[in-house]
């Protein structure tokens, strides 16, 4: 270990140059470049007279043991673009006459305790990492990492139990399995990033929150608690989406008031315990709201709270309040379902009151009234359990646009009275959750690209009145149902996602856009004679991506899934049972993947052209009935996607088809598979009989009559 002193003012600190290094303060240059075992000093003798000088680091990272900038009588600039500094001992920046402009990572890698980090108000310009097995660092002043990350990888990081120095960074991360300790004492930690704390893997992490105060300043963030115990944690106003993951404990958990119109969403991925006070800042008006909810619809999160401050203008979904506070009540609380121990105001009907184009949520007196055409009343903002009505008359005037200007939770939206008085309902990019019915009038135009999620968990209805929904639609209503009241069509390019609940076509036609897709959940598609039309020419036009929990119900009448694209499309069945008819309804070849069971298969396109139905090789498709045939000069091709056979199975009875061109098809199961006299054997078939089925045997009575 040696000491190295910077001399001769401006120069370069790289891996080879010895010009500016001396073995003594103010001594001759030419000493060796400091190694990680050497202490470096920058002092009054580092410059020429008292002039400013710049030490430009090169050859990243520069290394040293202790770094001490002290006694400087001219301004020293420590420079270096993207050049890191690795300190194996302690670090001290001088409070005056010292400027940091280097932008590389600063790493502290001591392997012994007793090290100090004293930056004296000098902020780092890049990430700061503490990574030394057995190392221990105590702050000697506030630590400011600016908009950069602070990472504890190994060792003990302590903010000083005596002075409780503040920490400022973009993020504070410690996610690994190394032995490490974080002591926050009574410090204030201010984190401005969108992932301000990441303790995802907290194995071997000892986190001592002390009586610290952690402040998050981003309006949208992911807080990965790692299941740790925190003291006071505060969020500034949340405008977007915030998620808290890990089962954590807090003293006080505070969310600043919502002062901007909109919905700040607070997702909890796990249960939380607040042993002090849970404060959800009140909204400025009813349209300035928070949503406190589980990250998964239908999965409850419990917030155990010793105390909850007065609450207003907050929506809750899948939240159970437990603990000494008891049942939570407040002002204008929105019930987004799945809550326990929260008292909500009774559902009411409110009426849109704006006379021209305006927003759903507005400041001042708002956009709503308690009566049709009554006075503006800011308190009548429609809550998640209310019915929002658009009157027929001038509220708003014909031709107006009403913009749903945030991700609001909406119960029933009734626009049925809007017929001759037209209105555009614009949702923009906002993602809306709907808990009641959606009723269009014939004078309605819908616009927007944000997601519509039907999440009511009870009986919901959609009356589209022939108005195309431009938004992607998700059905996520655990134990609930969404029932069509007429034909429903979504815009081209948008997807329908089926997650939870029953989608009852109720005898009507539901025409989806790009795809109909299932996701994780318990979902049932009930037809009652209705038809699901998938018009997209894609490999996921019907995509049963998550077949677990997916069922179908025929109900009354015959249901149909019709694949109508004019070019190739795919029905991804994923091995489910489809209590409906699968229809080839377009010119493009229909590929069916998975070993599925169908009530029936048809081909309605035969009247205008030839087409194909192709099965994935080595799959078995089971049918109750087979009614897919071609027409004269328009054969329906039955084949495999690849050069191997598929199997078609029908347990009993007779398949009576015709005008088929069949190849690589094994027909089995017990039924008689008659391809018809006009069908073509393309080879590699088994079980198909290329004749018409035999005439039914004459009955004894018939023979008797013929005899006579």
């Amino acid at each position, binding site marked *: 270990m040696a000491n190295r002193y910077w001399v001769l003012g401006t120069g370069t600190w790289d891996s080879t140059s010895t010009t500016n290094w001396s073995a003594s303060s103010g001594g001759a240059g030419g000493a060796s470049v400091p190694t990680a075992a050497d202490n470096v000093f920058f002092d009054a003798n580092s410059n020429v007279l008292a002039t400013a000088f710049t030490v430009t680091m090169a050859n990243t990272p520069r290394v040293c043991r202790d770094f001490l900038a002290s006694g400087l009588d001219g301004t020293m600039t420590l420079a270096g673009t993207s050049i890191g500094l690795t300190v194996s001992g302690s670090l001290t920046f001088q409070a005056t006459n010292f400027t940091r402009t280097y932008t590389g990572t600063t790493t502290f890698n001591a392997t012994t305790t007793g090290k100090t980090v004293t930056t004296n108000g000098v902020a780092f310009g890049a990430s700061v990492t503490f990574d030394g097995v057995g190392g221990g660092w105590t702050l000697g002043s506030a630590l400011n990492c600016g908009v950069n990350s602070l990472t504890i990888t190994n060792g003990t990081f302590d903010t000083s139990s005596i002075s409780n120095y503040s920490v400022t960074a973009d993020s504070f991360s410690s996610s690994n399995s190394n032995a490490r300790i974080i002591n926050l004492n009574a410090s204030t930690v201010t984190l401005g990033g969108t992932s301000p704390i990441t303790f995802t893997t907290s194995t071997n992490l000892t986190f001592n929150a002390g009586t610290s105060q952690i402040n998050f300043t981003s309006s949208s963030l992911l807080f990965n608690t790692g299941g740790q115990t925190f003291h006071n944690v505060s969020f500034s106003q949340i405008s977007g989406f915030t998620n808290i993951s890990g089962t954590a404990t807090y003293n006080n958990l505070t969310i600043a008031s919502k002062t901007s119109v909109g919905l700040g969403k607070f997702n909890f991925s796990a249960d939380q315990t607040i042993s002090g006070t849970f404060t959800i800042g009140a909204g400025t008006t009813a349209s300035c709201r928070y949503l406190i909810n589980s990250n998964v619809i239908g999965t409850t999160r419990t917030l155990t709270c010793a105390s909850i401050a007065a609450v207003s203008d907050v929506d809750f979904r899948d939240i159970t309040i437990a603990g000494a506070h008891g049942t939570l009540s407040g002002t204008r609380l929105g019930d987004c379902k799945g809550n326990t121990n929260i008292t909500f105001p009774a559902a009411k009907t409110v009426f849109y009151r704006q006379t021209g184009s305006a927003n759903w949520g507005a400041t001042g007196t708002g956009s709503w009234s308690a009566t049709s055409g009554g006075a503006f009343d800011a308190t009548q903002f429609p809550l998640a359990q209310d019915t929002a009505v658009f009157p027929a008359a001038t509220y708003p005037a014909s031709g107006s646009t009403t913009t749903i200007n945030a991700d609001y939770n909406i119960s029933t939206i009734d626009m049925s009275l809007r017929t001759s008085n037209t209105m555009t309902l614009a949702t923009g990019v906002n993602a809306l959750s709907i808990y009641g019915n959606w009723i269009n009038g014939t004078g309605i135009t819908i616009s927007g690209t944000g997601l519509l999620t039907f999440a009511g968990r009870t009986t919901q209805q959609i009356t589209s009145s022939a108005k195309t929904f431009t938004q992607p639609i998700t059905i996520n209503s655990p134990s609930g149902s969404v029932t069509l*009241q007429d034909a429903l069509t979504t815009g081209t390019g948008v997807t329908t996602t089926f997650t939870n609940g029953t989608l009852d076509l109720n005898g009507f036609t539901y025409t989806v856009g790009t795809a109909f897709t299932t996701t994780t959940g318990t979902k049932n598609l009930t037809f009652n004679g209705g038809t699901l039309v998938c*018009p997209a020419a894609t490999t996921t036009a019907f995509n049963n991506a998550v077949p677990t929990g997916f069922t179908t119900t025929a109900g009354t009448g015959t249901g149909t899934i019709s694949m109508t694209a004019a070019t190739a499309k795919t029905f991804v069945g994923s091995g489910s049972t489809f209590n409906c008819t699968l229809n080839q309804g377009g010119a493009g070849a229909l590929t069916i993947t998975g070993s599925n069971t169908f009530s029936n298969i048809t081909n309605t396109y035969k009247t205008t052209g030839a087409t194909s139905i192709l099965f994935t090789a080595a799959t078995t498709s089971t049918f109750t009935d087979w009614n897919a045939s071609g027409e004269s000069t328009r054969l329906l091709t039955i084949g495999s996607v690849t050069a191997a056979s598929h199997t078609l199975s029908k347990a009993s009875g007779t398949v009576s088809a015709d005008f088929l061109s069949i190849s690589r098809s094994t027909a089995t199961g017990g039924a008689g598979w008659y391809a018809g006299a006009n069908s073509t054997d393309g080879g590699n078939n088994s079980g198909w009989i290329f004749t018409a089925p035999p005439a039914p045997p004459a009955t004894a009575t018939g023979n008797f009559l013929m005899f006579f």
Partner: protein
Amino acid sequence: MTMKIDFSFSSQYGTFSDALHLPDDHAFTDAEIEAMKQQRFDNWIAVITAPPTEGV
């Protein structure tokens, strides 16, 4: 109050089933109602025959 008039059209693309929701006291003639039904079917055909080719 409103009345609901269910209707269906068959096509090569499958069956289109829809409903008209009209006021009980509506003044539409049968011909006008049939025209409304046909318009809805025509609009649906337009959607079906111009399918998207790419996802969003």
